[in-house]
Protein backbone atom coordinates (compact mmCIF):
# COMPACT_ATOMS: atom_id res chain seq x y z
CA UNK A 1 0.00 0.00 0.00
CA UNK A 2 1.66 3.13 -1.19
CA UNK A 3 0.36 6.51 -0.23
CA UNK A 4 0.05 8.68 -3.27
CA UNK A 5 1.38 12.18 -3.20
CA UNK A 6 -0.99 14.46 -1.39
CA UNK A 7 -1.02 18.21 -1.15
CA UNK A 8 -2.17 19.48 2.16
CA UNK A 9 -2.42 23.02 3.32
CA UNK A 10 -0.20 23.62 6.28
CA UNK A 11 -2.45 24.01 9.32
CA UNK A 12 -1.65 27.69 9.61
CA UNK A 13 -2.66 28.42 6.06
CA UNK A 14 -5.69 26.17 6.00
CA UNK A 15 -8.85 28.14 5.40
CA UNK A 16 -10.98 25.86 7.52
CA UNK A 17 -10.02 23.11 9.91
CA UNK A 18 -12.37 20.90 8.01
CA UNK A 19 -10.13 18.02 7.07
CA UNK A 20 -10.91 14.99 9.13
CA UNK A 21 -7.87 13.32 10.57
CA UNK A 22 -6.51 10.60 8.36
CA UNK A 23 -7.79 7.11 9.04
CA UNK A 24 -10.81 8.14 11.02
CA UNK A 25 -13.39 5.39 10.82
CA UNK A 26 -16.44 6.40 8.84
CA UNK A 27 -18.23 3.10 9.37
CA UNK A 28 -17.74 -0.01 11.43
CA UNK A 29 -19.30 -3.43 11.15
CA UNK A 30 -18.38 -6.81 9.81
CA UNK A 31 -17.26 -8.14 6.49
CA UNK A 32 -18.65 -11.57 5.96
CA UNK A 33 -18.21 -14.39 3.51
CA UNK A 34 -19.89 -17.73 3.92
CA UNK A 35 -19.47 -18.50 7.62
CA UNK A 36 -16.64 -16.06 8.32
CA UNK A 37 -17.49 -12.68 9.80
CA UNK A 38 -14.65 -10.27 10.47
CA UNK A 39 -15.15 -7.08 12.49
CA UNK A 40 -13.70 -4.19 10.51
CA UNK A 41 -13.91 -0.46 10.17
CA UNK A 42 -13.80 1.60 7.06
CA UNK A 43 -11.50 4.54 6.44
CA UNK A 44 -11.03 6.76 3.43
CA UNK A 45 -8.19 5.82 1.10
CA UNK A 46 -7.97 9.19 -0.63
CA UNK A 47 -8.54 12.74 0.40
CA UNK A 48 -8.84 15.16 -2.45
CA UNK A 49 -6.16 17.79 -2.02
CA UNK A 50 -8.06 20.53 -3.74
CA UNK A 51 -7.63 23.96 -2.20
CA UNK A 52 -10.93 25.58 -1.45
CA UNK A 53 -11.76 29.22 -0.82
CA UNK A 54 -14.44 30.90 1.19
CA UNK A 55 -16.39 33.70 -0.43
CA UNK A 56 -16.19 36.92 1.58
CA UNK A 57 -17.98 40.24 1.44
CA UNK A 58 -15.51 42.85 0.09
CA UNK A 59 -16.77 45.47 2.58
CA UNK A 60 -15.79 43.76 5.82
CA UNK A 61 -14.56 40.26 4.87
CA UNK A 62 -17.58 38.55 6.43
CA UNK A 63 -17.93 35.00 5.15
CA UNK A 64 -21.03 34.78 2.98
CA UNK A 65 -23.84 32.26 3.33
CA UNK A 66 -25.78 30.44 0.66
CA UNK A 67 -29.52 30.92 0.80
CA UNK A 68 -32.47 29.63 -1.19
CA UNK A 69 -33.95 32.54 -3.08
CA UNK A 70 -37.21 32.63 -5.01
CA UNK A 71 -36.56 34.54 -8.26
CA UNK A 72 -40.29 35.24 -8.57
CA UNK A 73 -40.65 36.98 -5.21
CA UNK A 74 -36.98 37.98 -4.94
CA UNK A 75 -36.76 36.88 -1.35
CA UNK A 76 -35.15 34.23 0.84
CA UNK A 77 -37.40 31.24 1.30
CA UNK A 78 -37.57 29.67 4.79
CA UNK A 79 -37.14 25.89 5.13
CA UNK A 80 -40.82 25.22 5.85
CA UNK A 81 -41.77 26.60 2.45
CA UNK A 82 -39.41 24.36 0.50
CA UNK A 83 -40.31 21.02 -1.09
CA UNK A 84 -38.48 18.65 -3.49
CA UNK A 85 -39.58 18.39 -7.10
CA UNK A 86 -38.40 16.01 -9.81
CA UNK A 87 -38.44 17.70 -13.20
CA UNK A 88 -40.16 15.56 -15.83
CA UNK A 89 -40.32 18.20 -18.54
CA UNK A 90 -39.56 21.89 -18.61
CA UNK A 91 -41.57 23.44 -15.78
CA UNK A 92 -43.32 20.19 -14.80
CA UNK A 93 -42.48 18.52 -11.51
CA UNK A 94 -43.44 15.53 -9.44
CA UNK A 95 -43.44 16.49 -5.76
CA UNK A 96 -41.69 14.15 -3.33
CA UNK A 97 -41.98 14.43 0.44
CA UNK A 98 -39.31 13.42 2.93
CA UNK A 99 -41.44 10.50 4.10
CA UNK A 100 -41.72 9.18 0.57
CA UNK A 101 -37.99 9.47 0.08
CA UNK A 102 -37.35 7.82 3.41
CA UNK A 103 -39.69 4.94 2.57
CA UNK A 104 -37.35 3.91 -0.25
CA UNK A 105 -34.15 4.52 1.72
CA UNK A 106 -32.40 1.31 2.75
CA UNK A 107 -31.95 0.55 6.43
CA UNK A 108 -28.51 1.09 7.91
CA UNK A 109 -26.55 -2.06 7.63
CA UNK A 110 -23.63 -3.31 9.62
CA UNK A 111 -22.32 -5.91 7.21
CA UNK A 112 -20.44 -6.06 3.96
CA UNK A 113 -21.54 -9.43 2.70
CA UNK A 114 -19.46 -10.86 -0.13
CA UNK A 115 -21.82 -12.59 -2.54
CA UNK A 116 -19.39 -13.76 -5.21
CA UNK A 117 -15.83 -13.44 -6.41
CA UNK A 118 -14.55 -12.15 -9.73
CA UNK A 119 -11.16 -11.57 -11.28
CA UNK A 120 -10.13 -8.04 -10.47
CA UNK A 121 -8.90 -7.50 -14.04
CA UNK A 122 -12.40 -8.14 -15.31
CA UNK A 123 -13.68 -4.95 -13.73
CA UNK A 124 -13.04 -2.08 -16.11
CA UNK A 125 -11.56 0.89 -14.18
CA UNK A 126 -14.37 3.02 -15.58
CA UNK A 127 -16.57 1.34 -12.93
CA UNK A 128 -14.31 2.46 -10.06
CA UNK A 129 -15.76 5.15 -7.85
CA UNK A 130 -14.38 5.74 -4.33
CA UNK A 131 -11.62 3.74 -2.65
CA UNK A 132 -11.53 2.88 1.07
CA UNK A 133 -9.35 0.76 3.32
CA UNK A 134 -10.78 -1.90 5.58
CA UNK A 135 -9.01 -2.12 8.92
CA UNK A 136 -9.49 -5.02 11.32
CA UNK A 137 -11.30 -4.11 14.53
CA UNK A 138 -10.33 -5.66 17.84
CA UNK A 139 -10.55 -9.44 17.75
CA UNK A 140 -10.68 -9.59 13.97
CA UNK A 141 -6.97 -9.40 13.20
CA UNK A 142 -6.38 -13.10 12.65
CA UNK A 143 -9.25 -13.85 10.30
CA UNK A 144 -8.56 -10.55 8.52
CA UNK A 145 -4.98 -11.55 7.77
CA UNK A 146 -6.15 -14.93 6.57
CA UNK A 147 -8.73 -13.50 4.18
CA UNK A 148 -6.30 -10.84 2.93
CA UNK A 149 -3.62 -13.44 2.20
CA UNK A 150 -5.90 -15.89 0.45
CA UNK A 151 -7.46 -13.20 -1.67
CA UNK A 152 -4.07 -11.82 -2.65
CA UNK A 153 -2.80 -15.20 -3.83
CA UNK A 154 -5.83 -15.75 -6.00
CA UNK A 155 -6.02 -12.12 -7.21
CA UNK A 156 -9.78 -12.25 -6.84
CA UNK A 157 -12.08 -9.47 -5.74
CA UNK A 158 -15.20 -10.09 -3.69
CA UNK A 159 -18.38 -8.39 -4.81
CA UNK A 160 -20.71 -7.15 -2.10
CA UNK A 161 -23.68 -4.91 -1.54
CA UNK A 162 -23.07 -2.27 1.05
CA UNK A 163 -25.10 0.58 2.56
CA UNK A 164 -23.37 3.77 3.58
CA UNK A 165 -25.17 6.98 4.42
CA UNK A 166 -28.55 6.00 2.99
CA UNK A 167 -27.05 4.91 -0.32
CA UNK A 168 -26.73 1.34 -1.50
CA UNK A 169 -23.46 0.57 -3.25
CA UNK A 170 -22.01 -2.30 -5.17
CA UNK A 171 -18.46 -2.71 -3.93
CA UNK A 172 -15.40 -4.75 -4.80
CA UNK A 173 -13.28 -5.95 -1.91
CA UNK A 174 -9.71 -6.64 -2.85
CA UNK A 175 -6.44 -7.41 -1.18
CA UNK A 176 -2.99 -5.98 -1.71
CA UNK A 177 0.05 -6.62 0.44
CA UNK A 178 -1.95 -7.81 3.41
CA UNK A 179 -4.41 -4.94 3.38
CA UNK A 180 -8.03 -5.29 2.38
CA UNK A 181 -9.42 -2.39 0.47
CA UNK A 182 -12.83 -1.68 -0.86
CA UNK A 183 -13.88 0.32 -3.84
CA UNK A 184 -17.41 1.43 -4.57
CA UNK A 185 -18.42 0.62 -8.15
CA UNK A 186 -20.70 2.48 -10.47
CA UNK A 187 -23.82 0.61 -11.49
CA UNK A 188 -23.84 -0.42 -15.14
CA UNK A 189 -26.54 2.06 -16.06
CA UNK A 190 -24.35 4.89 -14.81
CA UNK A 191 -21.53 4.01 -17.15
CA UNK A 192 -21.74 5.59 -20.58
CA UNK A 193 -20.95 3.23 -23.44
CA UNK A 194 -18.02 3.81 -25.79
CA UNK A 195 -19.76 2.33 -28.84
CA UNK A 196 -20.03 5.68 -30.61
CA UNK A 197 -16.35 6.36 -30.15
CA UNK A 198 -14.61 3.33 -31.62
CA UNK A 199 -14.38 3.39 -35.35
CA UNK A 200 -13.45 0.00 -36.75
CA UNK A 201 -14.11 0.74 -40.39
CA UNK A 202 -11.14 3.05 -40.79
CA UNK A 203 -8.12 1.21 -42.16
CA UNK A 204 -4.87 1.45 -40.30
CA UNK A 205 -1.45 1.22 -41.79
CA UNK A 206 0.81 -1.53 -40.39
CA UNK A 207 3.97 0.50 -40.66
CA UNK A 208 2.37 3.34 -38.75
CA UNK A 209 1.22 0.87 -36.08
CA UNK A 210 4.71 -0.50 -35.58
CA UNK A 211 6.16 2.95 -35.30
CA UNK A 212 3.74 3.85 -32.49
CA UNK A 213 4.31 0.50 -30.76
CA UNK A 214 8.04 1.19 -30.72
CA UNK A 215 7.48 4.67 -29.35
CA UNK A 216 5.35 3.30 -26.51
CA UNK A 217 7.98 0.68 -25.70
CA UNK A 218 10.70 3.29 -25.52
CA UNK A 219 8.71 5.51 -23.21
CA UNK A 220 7.54 2.78 -20.83
CA UNK A 221 8.59 3.17 -17.20
CA UNK A 222 7.41 1.79 -13.89
CA UNK A 223 4.51 3.76 -12.53
CA UNK A 224 5.64 6.09 -9.77
CA UNK A 225 2.75 8.18 -8.44
CA UNK A 226 5.16 10.30 -6.38
CA UNK A 227 6.64 11.66 -9.58
CA UNK A 228 3.51 13.68 -10.32
CA UNK A 229 2.01 16.44 -8.29
CA UNK A 230 -0.88 18.80 -8.79
CA UNK A 231 1.09 21.77 -10.06
CA UNK A 232 -1.68 24.31 -9.83
CA UNK A 233 -2.30 23.47 -6.16
CA UNK A 234 1.42 23.80 -5.53
CA UNK A 235 1.45 27.21 -7.13
CA UNK A 236 -1.61 28.36 -5.19
CA UNK A 237 0.06 27.20 -1.98
CA UNK A 238 3.22 29.14 -2.82
CA UNK A 239 1.10 32.17 -3.54
CA UNK A 240 -0.73 31.79 -0.22
CA UNK A 241 2.51 31.47 1.72
CA UNK A 242 3.93 34.52 0.02
CA UNK A 243 0.82 36.57 0.68
CA UNK A 244 0.69 35.42 4.29
CA UNK A 245 4.26 36.68 4.68
CA UNK A 246 3.94 39.96 2.85
CA UNK A 247 0.32 41.02 3.28
CA UNK A 248 -0.74 39.06 6.37
CA UNK A 249 -4.34 38.23 7.09
CA UNK A 250 -7.61 40.07 6.98
CA UNK A 251 -9.97 39.43 9.87
CA UNK A 252 -13.64 38.71 9.54
CA UNK A 253 -15.85 40.36 12.15
CA UNK A 254 -16.74 37.94 14.93
CA UNK A 255 -20.24 36.64 14.49
CA UNK A 256 -21.99 36.14 17.80
CA UNK A 257 -25.18 34.28 16.95
CA UNK A 258 -27.95 36.73 16.13
CA UNK A 259 -27.34 39.63 18.40
CA UNK A 260 -24.19 41.66 18.74
CA UNK A 261 -23.21 43.60 21.82
CA UNK A 262 -24.55 43.63 25.29
CA UNK A 263 -28.22 42.92 25.00
CA UNK A 264 -30.94 45.30 26.11
CA UNK A 265 -29.70 48.00 28.45
CA UNK A 266 -32.32 47.45 31.11
CA UNK A 267 -31.51 43.72 31.30
CA UNK A 268 -27.79 44.35 31.66
CA UNK A 269 -28.40 47.05 34.27
CA UNK A 270 -30.71 44.73 36.20
CA UNK A 271 -28.17 41.92 36.11
CA UNK A 272 -25.34 44.19 37.24
CA UNK A 273 -27.37 45.52 40.14
CA UNK A 274 -28.35 42.03 41.31
CA UNK A 275 -24.79 40.81 40.83
CA UNK A 276 -23.58 43.60 43.11
CA UNK A 277 -25.90 42.41 45.87
CA UNK A 278 -24.83 38.78 45.47
CA UNK A 279 -21.16 39.73 45.66
CA UNK A 280 -21.70 41.80 48.79
CA UNK A 281 -23.43 38.87 50.48
CA UNK A 282 -20.52 36.70 49.37
CA UNK A 283 -17.90 38.82 51.15
Amino acid at each position, binding site marked *: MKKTHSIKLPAKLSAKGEHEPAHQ*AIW*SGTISFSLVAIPV*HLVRAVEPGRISFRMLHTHDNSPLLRR*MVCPEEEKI*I*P*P*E*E*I*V*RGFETAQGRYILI*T*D*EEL*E*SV*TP*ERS*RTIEIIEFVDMEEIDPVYYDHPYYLIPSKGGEKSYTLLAEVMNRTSKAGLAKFILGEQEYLVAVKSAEGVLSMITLHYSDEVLGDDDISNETTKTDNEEKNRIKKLIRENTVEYDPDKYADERSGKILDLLRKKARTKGYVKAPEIE*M*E*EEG*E*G*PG*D*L*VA*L*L*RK*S*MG*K*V*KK*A*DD
Partner: protein
Amino acid sequence: MTKNFIEIQGQRLSLTNLEKILYPAYGFTKAHILDYYRKVAKHIIPHLKDRALTLKRYPDGTDKEYFYEKRCPSHRPAWVKTTDVIQDDGGRRTFCVVNDLESLIWVENLASLELHVPLAKAYSPNTPDSVVFDLDPGDHADILHCARVALILRDLLGELGLSSYVKTSGQKGLHVLIPLNNSETTFQDTKQFSKSTAEVMQTNYPDLVTAKQSKELRKGKVFINWSQNDAKKTMICVYSLRAREKPFVSFPLAWKELEDAERDRDRTKLHILYSDALERVEKAGDLFAEVLGKKQRLPHLKKSSTAETQRTQTE
Protein backbone atom coordinates in the same frame (compact mmCIF):
# COMPACT_ATOMS: atom_id res chain seq x y z
CA MET B 1 -29.46 -12.95 17.93
CA THR B 2 -31.38 -13.94 21.02
CA LYS B 3 -34.89 -12.65 21.37
CA ASN B 4 -37.22 -12.29 24.32
CA PHE B 5 -40.79 -11.24 23.98
CA ILE B 6 -42.53 -9.07 26.50
CA GLU B 7 -45.90 -7.41 26.60
CA ILE B 8 -46.46 -3.89 27.93
CA GLN B 9 -49.88 -2.26 27.89
CA GLY B 10 -50.99 -4.92 25.43
CA GLN B 11 -48.12 -4.14 23.02
CA ARG B 12 -45.89 -7.03 22.16
CA LEU B 13 -42.20 -6.17 22.00
CA SER B 14 -39.22 -8.29 21.16
CA LEU B 15 -36.11 -7.50 23.15
CA THR B 16 -32.80 -8.51 21.64
CA ASN B 17 -29.30 -9.27 22.92
CA LEU B 18 -30.25 -8.78 26.55
CA GLU B 19 -27.03 -10.36 27.78
CA LYS B 20 -24.83 -8.11 25.66
CA ILE B 21 -22.48 -6.06 27.86
CA LEU B 22 -22.75 -2.38 26.94
CA TYR B 23 -20.68 -0.89 29.79
CA PRO B 24 -17.69 -3.24 29.50
CA ALA B 25 -15.69 -1.75 32.40
CA TYR B 26 -18.69 -2.22 34.67
CA GLY B 27 -20.23 -5.41 33.29
CA PHE B 28 -23.53 -3.64 32.74
CA THR B 29 -25.70 -5.42 30.16
CA LYS B 30 -28.57 -4.33 27.98
CA ALA B 31 -30.89 -6.12 30.40
CA HIS B 32 -29.55 -3.85 33.19
CA ILE B 33 -30.15 -0.79 31.03
CA LEU B 34 -33.71 -1.81 30.19
CA ASP B 35 -34.30 -2.51 33.86
CA TYR B 36 -33.00 0.92 34.85
CA TYR B 37 -35.22 2.72 32.36
CA ARG B 38 -38.22 0.58 33.33
CA LYS B 39 -37.75 1.55 36.97
CA VAL B 40 -37.13 5.24 36.29
CA ALA B 41 -39.85 5.43 33.62
CA LYS B 42 -42.42 7.09 35.86
CA HIS B 43 -39.99 9.96 36.49
CA ILE B 44 -38.28 10.34 33.13
CA ILE B 45 -41.34 10.09 30.87
CA PRO B 46 -42.84 13.47 31.91
CA HIS B 47 -39.51 15.06 30.86
CA LEU B 48 -39.45 13.25 27.50
CA LYS B 49 -43.14 13.75 26.83
CA ASP B 50 -44.04 15.47 23.54
CA ARG B 51 -40.39 16.22 22.68
CA ALA B 52 -38.57 15.34 19.47
CA LEU B 53 -36.14 12.77 20.79
CA THR B 54 -32.54 12.34 19.69
CA LEU B 55 -31.20 8.87 20.40
CA LYS B 56 -27.52 8.48 21.11
CA ARG B 57 -26.99 4.82 20.33
CA TYR B 58 -24.15 2.57 21.41
CA PRO B 59 -24.97 -0.70 19.68
CA ASP B 60 -21.65 -2.27 20.64
CA GLY B 61 -21.11 -0.62 24.01
CA THR B 62 -19.80 2.60 25.48
CA ASP B 63 -16.24 2.01 24.30
CA LYS B 64 -17.27 1.44 20.70
CA GLU B 65 -18.73 3.59 18.01
CA TYR B 66 -21.90 5.48 18.68
CA PHE B 67 -24.19 7.53 16.54
CA TYR B 68 -26.83 10.17 17.04
CA GLU B 69 -30.10 9.01 15.56
CA LYS B 70 -32.43 11.89 14.99
CA ARG B 71 -34.63 10.23 12.42
CA CYS B 72 -36.97 7.76 14.08
CA PRO B 73 -36.09 4.38 12.55
CA SER B 74 -38.65 3.39 9.93
CA HIS B 75 -38.85 -0.13 11.35
CA ARG B 76 -40.57 1.33 14.43
CA PRO B 77 -43.79 -0.29 15.60
CA ALA B 78 -46.94 1.55 14.53
CA TRP B 79 -47.70 2.60 18.10
CA VAL B 80 -44.47 4.58 18.60
CA LYS B 81 -45.44 8.25 18.34
CA THR B 82 -43.47 10.53 16.07
CA THR B 83 -43.28 14.20 15.22
CA ASP B 84 -42.03 15.95 12.09
CA VAL B 85 -39.47 18.69 12.50
CA ILE B 86 -38.58 21.09 9.71
CA GLN B 87 -34.86 21.17 9.00
CA ASP B 88 -32.62 23.97 7.82
CA ASP B 89 -32.55 22.63 4.27
CA GLY B 90 -36.33 22.77 4.13
CA GLY B 91 -36.80 19.05 4.56
CA ARG B 92 -38.85 17.46 7.27
CA ARG B 93 -37.46 14.86 9.59
CA THR B 94 -39.50 12.40 11.62
CA PHE B 95 -38.39 12.08 15.24
CA CYS B 96 -39.50 9.54 17.85
CA VAL B 97 -41.61 10.82 20.72
CA VAL B 98 -41.60 8.85 23.97
CA ASN B 99 -44.79 9.40 25.95
CA ASP B 100 -45.21 5.93 27.42
CA LEU B 101 -43.36 2.97 28.86
CA GLU B 102 -43.63 0.76 25.78
CA SER B 103 -42.01 3.42 23.55
CA LEU B 104 -39.27 3.98 26.14
CA ILE B 105 -38.47 0.27 26.26
CA TRP B 106 -38.51 0.12 22.47
CA VAL B 107 -35.96 2.94 22.08
CA GLU B 108 -33.82 1.42 24.82
CA ASN B 109 -33.82 -1.91 23.03
CA LEU B 110 -31.98 0.01 20.28
CA ALA B 111 -29.17 0.58 22.81
CA SER B 112 -30.04 4.30 23.04
CA LEU B 113 -28.13 4.73 26.27
CA GLU B 114 -28.46 8.49 26.10
CA LEU B 115 -31.70 10.37 25.45
CA HIS B 116 -31.35 13.98 24.31
CA VAL B 117 -34.27 16.40 24.09
CA PRO B 118 -34.84 20.00 22.96
CA LEU B 119 -35.92 22.65 25.45
CA ALA B 120 -39.24 23.04 23.64
CA LYS B 121 -42.09 20.64 23.00
CA ALA B 122 -42.70 19.40 19.49
CA TYR B 123 -45.98 21.25 19.06
CA SER B 124 -44.46 24.59 20.11
CA PRO B 125 -40.90 24.29 18.82
CA ASN B 126 -40.03 27.97 19.30
CA THR B 127 -41.28 28.25 22.88
CA PRO B 128 -38.70 26.96 25.36
CA ASP B 129 -40.08 25.65 28.64
CA SER B 130 -36.97 26.72 30.48
CA VAL B 131 -33.71 28.63 30.29
CA VAL B 132 -30.63 26.47 30.67
CA PHE B 133 -27.10 27.30 31.76
CA ASP B 134 -24.85 24.46 30.71
CA LEU B 135 -21.85 24.68 33.06
CA ASP B 136 -18.91 23.00 31.42
CA PRO B 137 -15.52 22.83 33.17
CA GLY B 138 -12.48 23.52 30.98
CA ASP B 139 -9.14 21.76 31.42
CA HIS B 140 -7.85 21.96 35.00
CA ALA B 141 -11.34 22.76 36.31
CA ASP B 142 -13.85 20.23 37.60
CA ILE B 143 -17.36 19.73 38.85
CA LEU B 144 -16.62 21.56 42.15
CA HIS B 145 -15.82 24.70 40.17
CA CYS B 146 -19.16 24.17 38.42
CA ALA B 147 -20.85 23.83 41.82
CA ARG B 148 -19.45 27.17 42.89
CA VAL B 149 -20.64 28.85 39.67
CA ALA B 150 -24.06 27.20 40.00
CA LEU B 151 -24.47 28.53 43.53
CA ILE B 152 -23.56 32.08 42.52
CA LEU B 153 -25.92 31.76 39.58
CA ARG B 154 -28.69 30.59 41.88
CA ASP B 155 -28.20 33.65 44.10
CA LEU B 156 -28.08 36.01 41.15
CA LEU B 157 -31.26 34.56 39.68
CA GLY B 158 -32.83 34.65 43.12
CA GLU B 159 -32.15 38.40 43.26
CA LEU B 160 -34.07 38.65 40.00
CA GLY B 161 -36.96 36.77 41.57
CA LEU B 162 -36.32 33.56 39.65
CA SER B 163 -36.25 30.04 41.09
CA SER B 164 -33.71 27.74 39.52
CA TYR B 165 -32.97 24.03 39.65
CA VAL B 166 -29.77 22.08 39.16
CA LYS B 167 -28.89 18.65 37.82
CA THR B 168 -25.66 16.88 37.03
CA SER B 169 -24.92 16.48 33.36
CA GLY B 170 -23.86 12.93 34.17
CA GLN B 171 -20.47 13.85 32.72
CA LYS B 172 -18.26 16.54 34.21
CA GLY B 173 -20.64 19.47 34.39
CA LEU B 174 -23.87 20.79 35.82
CA HIS B 175 -27.04 22.17 34.25
CA VAL B 176 -28.93 25.01 35.92
CA LEU B 177 -32.49 25.48 34.68
CA ILE B 178 -35.00 28.28 35.13
CA PRO B 179 -38.51 26.97 34.48
CA LEU B 180 -40.66 29.33 32.40
CA ASN B 181 -43.64 27.28 31.23
CA ASN B 182 -45.32 30.25 29.63
CA SER B 183 -46.18 30.56 25.98
CA GLU B 184 -44.75 34.05 25.44
CA THR B 185 -41.02 33.56 25.92
CA THR B 186 -39.07 32.77 22.76
CA PHE B 187 -35.65 31.24 22.22
CA GLN B 188 -34.44 34.67 21.22
CA ASP B 189 -35.45 35.93 24.67
CA THR B 190 -33.87 33.03 26.55
CA LYS B 191 -30.67 33.19 24.53
CA GLN B 192 -30.34 36.91 25.11
CA PHE B 193 -31.05 36.52 28.82
CA SER B 194 -28.59 33.63 29.29
CA LYS B 195 -25.89 35.36 27.27
CA SER B 196 -26.17 38.61 29.22
CA THR B 197 -26.19 36.66 32.49
CA ALA B 198 -23.11 34.65 31.47
CA GLU B 199 -21.30 37.86 30.52
CA VAL B 200 -22.11 39.59 33.81
CA MET B 201 -20.86 36.47 35.61
CA GLN B 202 -17.68 36.54 33.54
CA THR B 203 -17.06 40.21 34.31
CA ASN B 204 -17.49 39.68 38.04
CA TYR B 205 -15.71 36.33 38.35
CA PRO B 206 -13.08 36.50 35.61
CA ASP B 207 -10.92 33.80 37.19
CA LEU B 208 -13.80 31.38 37.53
CA VAL B 209 -16.15 31.97 34.62
CA THR B 210 -15.95 32.40 30.87
CA ALA B 211 -18.83 33.02 28.51
CA LYS B 212 -16.74 32.10 25.48
CA GLN B 213 -16.47 28.71 23.85
CA SER B 214 -12.74 28.90 23.06
CA LYS B 215 -10.83 25.98 24.59
CA GLU B 216 -7.90 28.23 25.45
CA LEU B 217 -10.08 30.69 27.37
CA ARG B 218 -11.75 27.84 29.26
CA LYS B 219 -8.56 26.61 30.94
CA GLY B 220 -9.11 26.37 34.68
CA LYS B 221 -12.54 27.97 34.33
CA VAL B 222 -16.15 27.09 33.92
CA PHE B 223 -17.68 27.84 30.54
CA ILE B 224 -21.27 28.99 30.90
CA ASN B 225 -22.65 27.70 27.65
CA TRP B 226 -25.61 29.95 27.01
CA SER B 227 -25.89 29.00 23.33
CA GLN B 228 -27.80 25.84 24.29
CA ASN B 229 -30.88 28.07 24.43
CA ASP B 230 -31.67 27.37 20.82
CA ALA B 231 -34.49 25.57 19.04
CA LYS B 232 -31.95 23.45 17.19
CA LYS B 233 -30.02 22.24 20.22
CA THR B 234 -30.74 19.28 22.42
CA MET B 235 -29.70 18.53 26.01
CA ILE B 236 -29.28 15.29 27.88
CA CYS B 237 -32.66 14.52 29.48
CA VAL B 238 -32.80 14.40 33.25
CA TYR B 239 -32.58 10.75 34.47
CA SER B 240 -30.95 9.62 31.23
CA LEU B 241 -27.93 7.35 31.55
CA ARG B 242 -24.60 8.60 30.20
CA ALA B 243 -22.17 6.51 28.21
CA ARG B 244 -19.13 6.52 30.47
CA GLU B 245 -17.03 3.86 32.13
CA LYS B 246 -19.78 3.47 34.73
CA PRO B 247 -23.53 3.98 34.26
CA PHE B 248 -23.79 7.52 35.64
CA VAL B 249 -27.03 9.46 35.33
CA SER B 250 -27.94 13.09 34.64
CA PHE B 251 -29.60 13.62 38.00
CA PRO B 252 -31.31 16.48 39.89
CA LEU B 253 -29.66 17.71 43.07
CA ALA B 254 -31.01 19.75 45.95
CA TRP B 255 -29.19 23.08 46.33
CA LYS B 256 -28.25 21.98 49.85
CA GLU B 257 -26.38 19.00 48.41
CA LEU B 258 -24.40 21.32 46.17
CA GLU B 259 -23.56 23.60 49.09
CA ASP B 260 -22.38 20.62 51.16
CA ALA B 261 -20.30 19.19 48.34
CA GLU B 262 -18.67 22.55 47.75
CA ARG B 263 -17.97 23.11 51.45
CA ASP B 264 -16.55 19.59 51.94
CA ARG B 265 -14.69 19.69 48.62
CA ASP B 266 -16.37 16.33 47.95
CA ARG B 267 -16.88 15.74 44.28
CA THR B 268 -18.00 12.12 44.68
CA LYS B 269 -21.44 13.30 45.78
CA LEU B 270 -21.86 15.04 42.44
CA HIS B 271 -21.58 11.90 40.31
CA ILE B 272 -24.75 9.86 40.61
CA LEU B 273 -24.67 6.21 39.65
CA TYR B 274 -27.81 4.49 38.31
CA SER B 275 -28.29 2.59 41.58
CA ASP B 276 -28.13 5.78 43.69
CA ALA B 277 -30.48 7.40 41.20
CA LEU B 278 -33.11 4.69 41.61
CA GLU B 279 -32.78 4.74 45.38
CA ARG B 280 -33.14 8.53 45.49
CA VAL B 281 -36.20 8.82 43.23
CA GLU B 282 -37.80 6.05 45.24
CA LYS B 283 -37.37 8.16 48.39
CA ALA B 284 -37.71 11.74 47.18
CA GLY B 285 -39.68 11.48 43.93
CA ASP B 286 -38.97 13.76 40.97
CA LEU B 287 -36.83 16.67 42.20
CA PHE B 288 -37.27 18.20 38.77
CA ALA B 289 -41.09 18.21 38.80
CA GLU B 290 -41.08 22.01 39.28
CA VAL B 291 -39.05 22.44 36.09
CA LEU B 292 -42.10 21.17 34.22
CA GLY B 293 -44.68 22.95 36.32
CA LYS B 294 -43.43 26.24 37.69
CA LYS B 295 -44.51 29.30 35.71
CA GLN B 296 -42.03 32.18 35.66
CA ARG B 297 -41.23 35.17 33.51
CA LEU B 298 -37.86 36.62 32.75
CA PRO B 299 -37.62 39.96 34.58
CA HIS B 300 -36.71 42.15 31.62
CA LEU B 301 -39.68 40.82 29.65
CA LYS B 302 -42.09 41.19 32.53
CA LYS B 303 -41.38 44.89 32.77
CA SER B 304 -40.80 45.44 29.09
CA SER B 305 -43.85 47.66 28.69
CA THR B 306 -42.87 49.96 31.58
CA ALA B 307 -39.23 49.95 30.56
CA GLU B 308 -40.31 51.00 27.11
CA THR B 309 -42.23 53.99 28.44
CA GLN B 310 -39.36 54.95 30.73
CA ARG B 311 -36.94 54.90 27.90
CA THR B 312 -39.07 57.10 25.70
CA GLN B 313 -39.44 59.54 28.58
CA THR B 314 -35.74 59.84 29.26
CA GLU B 315 -34.70 60.10 25.64
